[in-house]
């Protein structure tokens, strides 16, 4: 390594028939997004590790067929012939590789997404009318794209705990939870406060905190933010307002603007949703009479 190049090597990747170049180390799901191909996902979050458990991002993947000389064989159009893997692969845990080809809109991929959507909804309470997440819920969004209009599920749904107070700011509805583990990974990897976990097994798996421990760290409201469904909800905002009636305002210092409006809630924004760690918790403080207290409170509790 005498002359390391400043930029990482680029790989040629075929996405839905078009060849693109991506630097080494790019996740396939990110690569797709960069070229405008959105792959639905629940468990994947770019700031967290990839457990690959929701199976929503299944795509078809293939690599160039190699000839006897270990070089890719070229087809009539001059492009490599792709050997497609027989099984769909998840694209949230794999990095791009040279010559990789993915198909995100094939019939098989659509079938996979239909299948996963159906599975996710069979035990979901479908209580969207009273759910705080309604309007910004991934289940709703992907249902429009990949859901079916009729349920084939004729059985009783699995019963799980409702309205569990995980901590002072977060309320959990276990029946709505799709067990994507984003909140658990957030607590482990970002907040370094390992309080959440899954208990029980199989379809009866339940998200919970250990009895006696509560999700009370300063970053806890981020779990509400990254929850793709209505399982984790902001206790203060619960049942306050349909989210589509809210007016959204971008702000760097929410506390300052909180006086001039009627602040309902705070959410972290792209591109660094998880890094907005402390500010989310200050919503509940805006009810305080004396704003001068607040900066003190933040510096005392909210540090990275």
């Amino acid at each position, binding site marked *: 390594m005498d002359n390391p190049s400043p930029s990482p090597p680029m790989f040629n990747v075929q996405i839905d028939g078009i060849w693109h170049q991506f630097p080494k180390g790019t996740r396939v799901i990110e690569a797709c997004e960069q070229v405008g191909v959105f792959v639905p996902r629940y468990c994947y979050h770019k700031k967290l590790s990839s457990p690959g458990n929701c*199976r929503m991002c299944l795509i078809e993947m293939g690599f160039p067929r190699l000839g006897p000389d270990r070089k890719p064989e070229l087809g009539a159009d001059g492009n490599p012939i792709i050997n497609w893997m027989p099984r769909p692969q998840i694209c949230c845990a794999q990095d791009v590789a040279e010559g990789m080809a993915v198909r995100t809109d094939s019939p098989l991929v659509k079938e996979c997404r239909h299948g996963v959507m159906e599975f996710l909804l069979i035990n979901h309470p479908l209580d969207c009318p009273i759910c705080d997440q309604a309007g910004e819920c991934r289940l709703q969004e992907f249902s429009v794209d990949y859901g079916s209009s009729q349920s084939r599920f004729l059985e009783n749904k699995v019963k799980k705990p409702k309205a569990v107070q995980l901590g002072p700011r977060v309320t959990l509805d276990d029946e709505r939870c799709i067990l994507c583990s984003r909140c658990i990974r957030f607590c482990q990897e970002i907040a370094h406060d390992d309080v959440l976990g899954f208990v029980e097994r199989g379809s009866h798996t339940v998200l919970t905190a250990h009895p006696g421990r509560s999700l009370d760290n300063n970053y806890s409201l981020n779990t509400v933010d990254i929850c793709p469904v209505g399982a984790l909800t902001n206790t203060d905002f619960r049942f306050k307002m349909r989210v589509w009636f809210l007016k959204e305002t971008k702000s760097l210092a929410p506390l300052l603007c909180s006086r001039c409006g009627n602040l309902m809630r705070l959410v972290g924004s792209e591109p660094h949703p998880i890094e907005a760690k402390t500010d989310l918790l200050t919503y509940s403080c805006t009810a305080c009479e004396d704003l001068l207290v607040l900066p003190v409170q933040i510096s005392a509790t909210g540090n990275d």
Partner: protein
Amino acid sequence: MDEAIARYPKDHRRSATMPLLHLWQEHFGFIGHEAVFWIAEKLGLQPINILEVVTFYPMFRQHPAGKTHIRICRTLSCAMAGGLEVMENLCASLGIKRPNDGEETNNPIAVSADGNYSVEFVECLASCHTAPVCMIGEQLHEKVDPNSAADFFRNRQSVIGDPKLAWPPHPLEHRLVYKNIGRPGWTSDIDCYLRDGGYEQLKQALTLSRDDIVNKVKNSGLRGRGGAGFSCGLKWSFIKPDEKRPVYLICNADESEPGTFKDRYIIHEDPHQLLEGMLISCYALGAHTAYIYIRGEFPEGANILERAIEDARQHNFLGKDILGSGFDVEFYIHRGAGAYICGEETGLIESLEGKRGYPRIKPPYFPAVLGLYMCPTIVNNVETLCNIKHIIAMGGAEYARLGRPNNTGTRVLCVSGDVQRPGYFEVEVGAVTMGQLIYEMAGGLRPGRKLKAVIPGGSSAKVLRADERFKIKERQTDGSTSEREIAIDDIAMDFDSLAAAGSMAGSGGVIVLDDSRDMVWALNNLNKFYAHESCGQCTPCREGSLWMQKITDRMLRGGGVVEDPKTLKTIGDNIAGRTICAFGEACAWPTQSFVEKFPEEFAARARKPIPPPLPPEYTSEELIEEESIPTVPMAHDPGWEKAGAKGTI
């Protein structure tokens, strides 16, 4: 307890979670809150980490059991032999009230009023040929008579039936790994093993180079005996000879595939053969630490192995500088706690690391690259490791002459279900056909019964129907292939033939069903197994396995609707191939194949045009108690009026 912690690397004390939980439960009877806090503190973990593990493994109890705890197997072979009646009769005589079938409860244990007895249904106890079986405390009881079960438990008499069902090998058998199983005068201690030329192959192997051994195993063509049939030599060659990180060998003794009970006998009767195979493998792989992951339902097996390890250490076969070769190696036992998914190699590794047995995604977590503690790890089945000893003894090429090309060696077939003489038979791979196995070796079906179906490789394998015709492609000696159509009796019991017949050789557990069996009932039994054992990590398997069970439950209750067979089939299609691990296929294949091959039985149970009404999910009282409905007036009135024309407040 400290001794249990010391068995794992210093940086990975978390691995000691399960051993500590076992110790706690043995001492206190169940695992309460104090246990969770105490163990978490001891290992430097959060209580939730421990609680996650306790609730994942059914053998860990959070509630006290009776003084005598009885586990009764409810999986297919035992259920066919009357395991369910055993439970019924037992509960009736002990006055135990169990929750009704289908009722959800998170405590599967039912205790008698006086607290003396408790019962629990468990999944396959890996003794399917002596069905129905149960475990009383830590003791396995075989061939329990359903009708006298009650008396049997009450009087606490000695074991019914012969604990060792030993018989001389059948003439069609070729005993290699099972040479000593059931042999008159054979014991599991080291002296007996040494008298029989034990550990000679280890001495021989230590004179060879590592590459030589790996090449021998490659030449032998040995394929894994755990279920997937992956080439053992190829797996081993993934370990780089100059690996800097520690290399681990794990012996997968988590035998829990319904219909399979081969590893049980190796562990219980010939543990030193396994140890010798493992020692040779460790030497070949450069692994200085090996773990034996033995399923929790084999407490006696774990004790036997502990003793065998101690004896081997006394003889310097194990420990520092073994037999003066300069090679150090240490073996440890790690007990599971009743999770089928921990037989999946990455699930096993997670479990060994002290976590829930969630299989890892591959890529990137191929065990040979990122295995136990993110180090290169080889996971092999008990029978596979035993074969290593014989490969060293015979030489790779000689071993490869056994069996058929690409299906070399011998393997143990476990026959259970509706045959006259169920049991284990070690044969050269492919040397016997299904017909020979069922009718000659296993004594055929009961008088007056006809064969209906065979599950040829553990419950996950696709079922074969007795009157089916199979198109098998055969490679001739001149290299050409020819196709011929054969009946079920003529299928050779090897990896490739069974794959060609649309099923798999799997773990070698053959379950035979005769014409008295209801296939919907049989599938329901397997579906219950898979719904119970699904780890719940990824969506299709978690949701699909329980859904399939609920559908077959309803069909059995008489509420099957016309669409049910089609729904079952599509659920299977939506699971298979789309999950993190092979459990997806394992739970989808039975459903897919049962529905496809016995359409008339499923159609007969699915006649209703509309579904029956569901029992109510919530009572009205529960709804009122629900705290999710706020009682304080809302600060803002959500609604259009308030929102105004601009859509803002």
